[in-house]
């Protein structure tokens, strides 16, 4: 049986990979994908600890997290479309007219 802390290491690894993507990528779609990775890191924890604690709360909540991730992507894509129409690109760094 895999010790439970390895799941934590795995999930934090995934979380930080997602974060790495957010910090280094400029394309809004990659940005979305990276956020998905981070959310799924949470799901790994939830499912793993659902087993660890012997209750299904975590697993059930993971389902909701997945559904919300989908909803978030839907709205995100909508905003990216609007971004593309206004700025002609999906580069998140380019939309920087407001600052200070």
């Amino acid at each position: 049986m895999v010790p439970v802390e390895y799941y934590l290491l795995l999930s934090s690894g995934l979380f930080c990979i997602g974060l790495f993507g957010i910090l280094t990528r400029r394309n809004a779609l990659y940005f979305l994908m990276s956020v998905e990775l981070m959310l799924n890191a949470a799901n790994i924890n939830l499912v793993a600890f659902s087993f660890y604690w012997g209750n299904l709360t975590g697993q059930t909540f993971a389902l909701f997290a997945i559904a919300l991730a989908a909803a978030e992507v839907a709205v995100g894509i909508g905003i990216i479309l609007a971004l593309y129409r206004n700025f002609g690109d999906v580069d998140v760094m380019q939309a920087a007219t407001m600052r200070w």
Partner: protein
Amino acid sequence: MVTAFDYVPAIVLLPFVSFVVALFIGKQLPKKGAYGGIAATAGSLLLSLWVLASVAGGGAHQETYWTWAEGVGSQPFTLEFGALIDPLSALMLVIVTLIATLVHVFSLGYMNDEGERDLPRYYAGLGLFTASMLGFVIADNLLMAFMFFELVGLCSFLLIGFHFREPGPPSAAKKAFLVTRFGDYFLLVGVVAVFATFGTAAFAGAESFPALAEGALDGTVDVWTPGGLDTMTWFTVVGLLVLGGVIGKSAQFPLHTWLPDAMEGPTPVSALIHAATMVAAGVYLVARMYGFYALTPTTLGIIALVGGFTALFAATMGLVKEELKQVLAYSTISQYGYMMLALGSGGYVAAVFHLTTHAFFKALLFLGAGSVIIAMHHNENMWDMGGLKNKMPVTYWTFLAGSLALAGIFPFAGFWSKDEILYEALIHAGSEPLLFAGYAMGLLAVPVTAFYTFRMVFLTFHGNARSEIARNPEPVRWNVKGPLSVLGALAVVTGGINMVPVQKVLGIEGIDYLHLWLDNHWGGIEGLSSHHYAEIDPYSSTYPFGTEVATVLAGAAISLALAVAGLLLAWKLYNVAEPVEHTDKLGGAKTLLYNNYYQDEFQVWLADRTRGVSGGADTFDQGVVDGVVNGVSSVSLFGGDRIKRIQTGVVGNYALLLTVSLTALLVVFALLGGWF
């Protein structure tokens, strides 16, 4: 039975009604709301006199009108509005309403006759200003006092900025507002601290915070202090926090910078601000809660030092100003410094006395200056005046009375009150050597005051007219001369209410009316008497000139001699046909010399030195103090500018900063919590 105390709210509400009336239907009224304001303030004056008479008849009064909020939980904080009418507040009510009435009348001449625009706004502002000051005066707890204190500040903002179409007034208004507000935030924390410490902010009664503080120092009452701080230390801190607001409002060093700028406001407003409302509010607040301040020697010492220093420092700057109102502005700062010196030296009565006399003679001087300004078509430069003495005799003689009072010349009002302040500082200096410094600075300021006052008088009214307007000044009407005459008479005789030196020297009992008044001789509220304050303050009296009588005489003689010396010096230098600025004099000096060589040489030397010192003080004021004030704001702005630069507009950087902060917080709390 209807008593005067039933009408106390009306004293505040009448000017407030005139504010509302002027604001909404002022345009339709004859004189744009002036008559309403005069009627309202005169009504308040009559009611105040009735209240004063009732207090003299043995009554004193405390009443709660309105409860704002009652907290729940273990420590409820009940916030209330109520009136506290005791000898001090009754006296102050009469002063404020009297000055306000006269200022309203004067405004007919200064504003209406001059065809100013936006008069309803002006009269609305005056009404609200008066109402908030009166509300402040009757306040029976510190929170209510604070709220009206702020309202006073807001009104001064509106009135100083009245001529908003010109460039100066709006920024002066803003400066006045912000600088005093800066002090007020200390006051706010102080008010909160008073609540947290005592659970109440009431001024009077057995459950009031001064009484509780006294009990706490005796060990009979338990109070909360932060982190188990020593009660005395904590009370000192609280006292200093409240003092922050006082220093801002009463224009004490280093928060005095707003006041000279505030001269941009209309002159009647300056009279009101300086004599009876805004600036007086700070000193009044200290007097109001003197039972608390008297408990902490450190606070008293600081008050005395700040006061003494301000008195001298501002006086030296008055020496070099060229505009009439600027001189008066610095004299106000200096005179309030005296009052603070008195409060810090345990001279509670002396401070109230000077507050009273100063209210009259400073209102007189400002209105007189207003009269001159009308005559001069709003040119305020004294070097363009001269010779107005014969053209406007009423203004001249009343202005002269006010000046003699300000300079502290026997037997004008200012002499008595200033003398008593210096006397108190002197006899208490034995138990607190720090007061010697305050006394010395106060004493040094005396000749300086006399000098700049009469420099102003001579330049304005004596000699030859130095400009075309000054040769043909515009005449002023009854509505200017009337208030001047009333105040002129008061400036001469007000000293009579408290002739302590005469009493002491001649042994006539019972003519120190103000002492008896504030000592609840005719009635008052337990614990708010000057006697009680004298018991709890840390000072004891010693007489450096042997006996009490000798000390009284010597003190009076010294200050009078210094005042006369200052006056005479001004006489020599400026009471000439064609006075010059004495620094310009060195070159072609000879033609202007009219006395023997040695004396003249001395004069020139002295004028030069004086000018050096006061010029230095002025430079210090404008360069350093203003610089510090501006510096603080520019540092804040610069800081803000730096801070906002992290908002680069690039969303990737935000994500990076977010990650970094999160990581940093994790590390900090991991170390604190020992998670590793």
